[in-house]
């Protein structure tokens, strides 16, 4: 009973926060709403006894990704009015997407109503069950191939990022400290001997 109340309360906050993300006038508020939404989904995961995923969501998304988002949003100085100008233009596409999602939602409800067993989530896990351990077990055994591939993809991302950003732009002016220090007086100052100005 307590769990159910908790679930509905958290879900309600989650939905409000999600709506807030897209309705907030100020993009910084939008990002903060997204942080709230992430926190609440983390709690939902906790209710499902998926502690590891919940903590990773908070650490990675809230801790790293969203802070980065916040920085970007603050730095970009987005013109909110301009961003909203395309609303009517993109409305048909948006309605289409909403219609598809509503259809899929209907399917899920219809399937549940038709009595098929949809999921195993929510069932009680046995004592001593350790979500983190289970995840680690499949990650490093059954999915070790995918795990290694993901590592290679990250390596490529590093190589690509360095390739694309580390370069000398043509015509870039920069200081060469060694050259500056080892400069001699003769290189910089030229004494010109000339006669005093003639009288007019």
């Amino acid at each position, binding site marked *: 009973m307590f769990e159910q109340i908790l679930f509905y309360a958290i879900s309600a906050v989650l939905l409000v926060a999600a709506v807030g993300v897209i309705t907030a006038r100020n993009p910084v508020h939008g990002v903060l709403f997204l942080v709230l939404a992430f926190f609440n989904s983390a709690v939902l995961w906790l209710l499902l006894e998926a502690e590891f995923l919940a903590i990773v969501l908070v650490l990675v998304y809230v801790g790293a990704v969203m802070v980065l988002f916040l920085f970007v949003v603050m730095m970009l100085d987005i013109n909110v009015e301009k961003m909203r100008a395309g609303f009517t233009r993109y409305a048909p596409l948006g309605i289409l997407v909403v219609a598809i999602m509503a259809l899929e939602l209907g*399917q899920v409800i219809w399937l549940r109503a038709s009595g098929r067993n949809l999921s195993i989530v929510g069932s009680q896990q046995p004592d001593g069950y350790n979500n983190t351990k289970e995840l680690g077990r499949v990650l490093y055994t059954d999915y070790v191939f995918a795990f290694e591939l993901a590592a*290679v*993809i990250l390596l*490529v*991302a590093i190589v*690509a990022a360095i390739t694309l950003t580390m370069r000398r732009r043509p015509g870039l002016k920069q200081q060469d400290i060694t050259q500056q220090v080892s400069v001699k007086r003769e290189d910089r100052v030229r004494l010109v001997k000339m006669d005093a100005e003639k009288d007019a």
Partner: protein
Amino acid sequence: MEFQAPVLAPAAAEITLLTLTCVVLLVDAFLSQARRDVTYLLTLLTIVSTAFVVAFMTGEGAQVTFSGHFVNDPMARVLKLVVLATTGMVFLYSRDYLARENIYRGEFFVLALFATLGMMVMISAHSLLSVYLGLELLSLSLYALVAFNRDSGNAAEAAMKYFVLGAIASGCLLYGMSLLYGAAGTLDLAELSARIADGATLSDLWVLVGLAFLLVGIAFKFGAVPFHMWLPDVYQGTPTPVTLFVGSAPKVAAFAMAIRLLVDGLGSIGEAWQSMLIVLAVASMAVGNIVAIAQTNIKRMLAYSTISHVGFILMGILSGSEDGYRAAMYYTIAYVIMATAAFGMVILLSRRGFEAENLDDFKGLNRRSPWFAGMMLIVMFSMAGVPPFLGFYAKIAVIAAAVDANLTWLAILAVVLSVIGAFYYLRVVKLMYFDDPADEPALEGSSVVKLALSFNGLLILALGLFPNGLIAVCQHVFG
């Protein structure tokens, strides 16, 4: 809880390639620009050793390992060898061009090797997850390669378009996979096929929607109409060696992805994807062949020519029989050989500060170099499907497969469209032989490029004159 370590032998080639690529990456970091050739030679060595491992050390038959994520079967071995050979050719063509344009950097080779690894993973994929990860590995490397020449505005624009559209396509593919996983409850392709055949999925509608999204991803990677928009811009905007790479080997990987997903994974709902593929194939052949006529830039022209060839490959796959898959595979290999030669030609004709990318740059090539005009003639005739060149047999095989599948109207349409397409191939021939050159500088390319190009052109002729060898290879894979 007992866990058995996976058998690594079937994946020996991938392991070799990854290890050697990391060696290249490390060695290159300590080399001065003057000794960049060491990277180049190490890269070639990597390709050769990997090809050796694929050919002689990965065993016979079909072996599944890594808990069903990886398969090593005859198709995987043949396609991997094709990919490796193509990549090797790309490196041979590219070296001088890169050195001339001051973009002779180790990252080109490292990224291309990682892309090759991604292609090999896609070819050997036995689960939805490995297909996706291989594709991401390939795509990420390609995005970086396209943007490789940072001083070129065109390259940056092309990379931007490719990246944004590619990300959307990957998203569609992943969404389709998630729907299939949700409906069938398995990532394993063989298992997926079995469950769909048994009706053990949650709902047929989900499977169909998932299939539609998968097809979007596949069509994008192939460059099939209406997901072809990125192709001409990317081909035109990037440095020619990268165009050569993007336009050749990844098509083999795309073919493998289509076979793995559609035939291995969703073979039991063949009639569902057949009708979807017909639309893609007809649109690709029509748009590719007709729009190519209006192009004045040879890289754009070849891009549209690629789109039309993709239509033919899809036509083979949609026939839905072993014959059809064999024909599609034959066509893919033929296309890759022809595309490598065609872009190699563009590289050969380029000089320092001059990109031979306009059709007019081919004017009077016969007077400048009769031998290479002859090579280009072979490539163009083969792409147009004139006997006795390689492209002719490829087209015959695909069209025959379509007729066998009771799609005679499609076969007739394909013939008509390829006759229309012959116009722009023959126009290049006309420019080379019957027009006067604007200026007559001798060809500058190094002897390596010339040798590689001659080999490539003669290969098209030889495989056309003796088509049985390649046909036997394809027969060994399917049937």
